[in-house]
């Protein structure tokens, strides 16, 4: 019965955009940089995310899903969740996903000129979150 319950849940729900997975399995090593505007910021577990709205040369806009670490990991790693805000224009570098128009956050240059990076709370290195 329990097995059937799990299978029912698994196959009856449409695929979602973000899940808790191996970065290596879901994103390539290839990086790309976009300028765009942040919207739909979600500080949640198992992955935080936002939409980056990118203006194309033909005047249309394209939306990219940008995935970050879990909220719990970002906060423990020293992020202040006010460091990114809906509506901000940023220059974002990310790893291209195997899913269409998905990016893994690598770093973002913020409106004040600082560059923001992730840092896992259990990362033993002293990698800095911000640089100029």
């Amino acid at each position, binding site marked *: 019965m329990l097995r059937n319950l799990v299978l029912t849940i698994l196959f009856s729900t449409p*695929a*979602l955009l973000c899940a*808790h997975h191996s970065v290596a399995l879901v994103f390539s090593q290839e990086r790309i940089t976009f300028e765009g505007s942040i919207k739909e910021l979600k500080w949640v577990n198992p*992955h935080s995310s936002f939409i980056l709205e990118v203006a194309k040369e033909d005047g249309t806009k394209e939306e990219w899903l940008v995935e970050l670490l879990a909220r*719990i990991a970002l906060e423990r790693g020293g992020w202040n969740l006010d460091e990114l805000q809906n509506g901000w224009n940023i220059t974002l570098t990310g790893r291209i996903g195997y899913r269409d128009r998905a990016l893994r956050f690598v770093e973002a240059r913020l409106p004040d000129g600082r560059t923001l990076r992730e840092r*896992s*709370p259990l990362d033993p290195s002293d990698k800095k979150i911000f640089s100029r």
Partner: protein
Amino acid sequence: MALGCILLYGWPVASFGQPDLEGIWGIDRTLFRQYSEVRYTEEGQRRHDAYDVLVDDFSYQCIPSGLGRAWDEPDTVVKIEQFEDRVVIQYEMFDLVRTVYLNQNGHPVELIPSTVNIHGEPMPTMGHSIGWYEGDTLMIETIGYARGNITTLLRYPPQSMALRSIERIYRDESDRLVVNIDWVDPITLAEPLVSTNRYLRSKFDLTVYGCIKEEFDHE
């Protein structure tokens, strides 16, 4: 220093004469997700090849793909509490509570999952576990798994309902927690898989993770 303390005061033991494994632990990034080479059966290879992490990942439902995935988690903590008759392991990821009863006379006929989430919902991919101590080591045998994947980090070996695992959990000489697991699955694995993770005492408390699948969807 840790070794000095052990020599001076003896190996730490919890109440009831058990080795002391209690605490809040975070993964040691110098030794984690160490898996032996995976050798699949024909069926295991078929299931592996059919798996699409972008679609099939149980994490989409806030469910661990398997026990290995719970132990492999890099960014959250694990809390262990020892009682006379049971060990309670709380995995912060997905707010999982796993209760392992000790010194049982085998598994029951009806294999109710030993792990539930914060809402009390059973997690069949984590199986049914019983435990016992062998010297300084907590041994846990788990069977009754639902289909899933032992882990989904870096690799995704499928698990069948025939999976049986044996965990050996102990503290090393530097006060680190070591979790060594043998995975035997005659349906998917041509030979046993062995995994090892090591954990350090965490400076973080266990918190409510709060995975709500509707919240992380942008669709």
